[in-house]
């Protein structure tokens, strides 16, 4: 015995191309919707992950000091500002501070990089505190240096790859004519650490002649303390700027807000267009089957039965479209990622788009909900067809 949904399903097979086009339309809009919802969720996660991966919540830098490696590169290593190591000791004394890690960044001009030379940068870190903050680091080879004065280096994966370095190899700091032994190569982290060469900070201070100086201090605040309190105290320190990563995050999020609004308008428009497509398809098929629907009524179909039949057709279209759209969204996460990155002023590393089951279900429910809503009119129209009208139109 045939059931009403089978009739509906087989009706859709009648105009395969049209059904497929409609489903494609729905799938596209579902794709956009799911991807954008996924972006909404993933972006903040990625940003948090990026910021957590710093290992500290507050960065103290010398006033006017570029604290981003990128800025350093652009400035060609010049214009570095230093603060005295004593500041680190002052900060360490705050009761709210759990642990601090001193950093000293240095860059040199390397005439043998490219045709006109390039910059090589080194990050001096404290072997006692820095590895603890970067607990998620994994080593491809080797391990951390332990002596803050050692002539050793740990390389981020990409830095090591570019220099073809493995544990036991040497690197040469140009200009300074100093050799360092590579003791560790990190696995990829997906952050800017991948391109960094880590060196014990005393070594950097010695080699570059900046003993007792630091470029930045990473501060990890005690879990129970309020970050804002610590920040407030540190503002009183002379000649330093305090960058709270929460602040950085807020700034980035507000920058991205505009892009988000844009992206959501696109999603809404896409869904609306798909729904107009659904209304059109179903309405057309109702008009085409005008007589047939009348005949169904002569066979005993109540208006409610006809309504259900047409509604089920809409439902099937939306269901298939929604599933296909979700599949597309999942399959093309990387593509979406790339496209969105182009739109944004700042993109964290790692995946920006996060699609999980609850999110896919919400999108699915939205698509089907809106779809059924747009199926209301055609279904109502079909339910109102009277058998006699269709038979008359047969005679005419």
């Amino acid at each position: 015995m045939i059931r009403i949904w089978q009739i509906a399903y087989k009706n859709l097979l009648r105009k395969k191309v049209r059904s497929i086009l409609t489903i494609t339309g729905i799938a596209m809009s579902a794709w956009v919707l799911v991807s954008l919802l996924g972006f909404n969720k993933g972006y903040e996660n990625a940003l948090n992950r990026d910021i957590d991966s710093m290992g500290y919540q507050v960065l103290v830098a010398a006033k006017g000091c570029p604290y981003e490696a990128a800025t350093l590169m652009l400035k060609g290593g010049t214009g570095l500002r230093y603060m005295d190591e004593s500041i680190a000791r002052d900060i360490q004394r705050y009761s709210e501070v759990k642990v601090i890690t001193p950093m000293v960044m240095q860059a040199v001009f390397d005439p043998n990089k490219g045709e006109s030379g390039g910059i090589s940068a080194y990050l001096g870190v404290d072997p006692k505190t820095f590895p603890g903050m970067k607990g998620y680091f994994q080593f491809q080879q080797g391990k951390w240096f332990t002596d803050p004065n050692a002539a050793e280096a740990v390389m981020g994966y990409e830095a090591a790859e570019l220099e073809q370095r493995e544990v036991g190899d040497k690197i040469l700091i140009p200009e300074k004519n100093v050799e360092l032994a590579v003791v560790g190569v990190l696995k990829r982290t997906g952050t800017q650490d991948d391109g960094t060469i880590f060196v014990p900070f005393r070594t950097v201070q010695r080699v570059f002649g900046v003993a007792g100086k630091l470029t930045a201090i990473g501060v990890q605040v005690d879990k129970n303390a309020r970050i804002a309190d610590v920040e407030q105290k540190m503002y009183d320190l002379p000649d330093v700027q305090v960058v709270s990563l929460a602040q950085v995050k807020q700034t980035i999020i507000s920058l991205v807000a505009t892009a988000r609004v844009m992206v959501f308008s696109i999603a809404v428009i896409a869904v609306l267009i798909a729904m107009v497509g659904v209304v059109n398809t179903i309405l057309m098929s109702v008009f085409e089957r005008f007589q047939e629907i009348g005949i169904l009524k002569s066979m005993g179909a109540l208006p409610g039965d006809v309504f259900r039949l047409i509604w089920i057709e809409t439902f099937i279209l939306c269901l298939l479209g929604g599933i296909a759209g979700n599949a597309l969204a999942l399959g093309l996460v990387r593509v979406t990622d790339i496209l969105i990155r182009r739109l944004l002023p700042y993109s964290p590393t790692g995946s920006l788009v996060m699609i999980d089951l609850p999110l896919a279900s919400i999108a699915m429910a939205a698509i089907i909900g809106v779809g059924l809503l747009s199926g209301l009119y055609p279904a109502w129209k079909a339910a109102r067809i009277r058998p006699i009208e269709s038979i008359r139109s047969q005679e005419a």
Partner: protein
Amino acid sequence: MNDTGIAIIAEHISKIYRRGSDKITALDGVSLRIRRGDFVAFVGPSGSGKTTLLNILGCLDNPTDGALSVGGTDVFGEGTRLGEKELTKIRRQHFGYIFQNFYLLPTLTVRENVTVPFSFYRKDNAVTDIPALLASLGIERRMNHLPGQLSGGEMQRVAIARALVNRPEILLADEPTGNLDSKRSRDIGEVLGSLNRDQGITIIMVTHNPELAALAGRQIDLRDGRI
């Protein structure tokens, strides 16, 4: 009115269509009674009102005036005007319909087409053995074919099977052989005749085909909306 021998009573049925300011009288005070087990054929020229009368008797259309009772239930009359839902219930209870153009659903197999009415309702005494029903109409081997693979005569047999699955008391046939050649028309006529004779189904038929009309026990000639 509750005479169990009478299937349909129609009294002074008239039907007037309005097209703009014109009034077209399709039926002009027709009265007739159809008994259970009758085989009635409406004959007459085009535009004589045969189909309109059939549709009104089959509760597919409302008369402009007059009274109609089906199987003892008042359908139309003074103060009685049933809504679409009630009409559907009466149609479900009493009627099976076949049409000139068959109206099979092209994407469903013969078997599926025949059982479409079940997706809406199923009478207690409905046919359970579909293959046997199809066999009785000589189309059992076509059971899993699609309508597009059938001849016109076979399609009309499928339509008849579909009309019969809920065991109607009355079968309404509007030009059932209008799209068939004479050989196939005769076959369909025989099918209808045997349904009437062997199963006692009341048949009301509209036809242009005198040979088919001759099979009916009673011919009603319509002219200009009158008997």
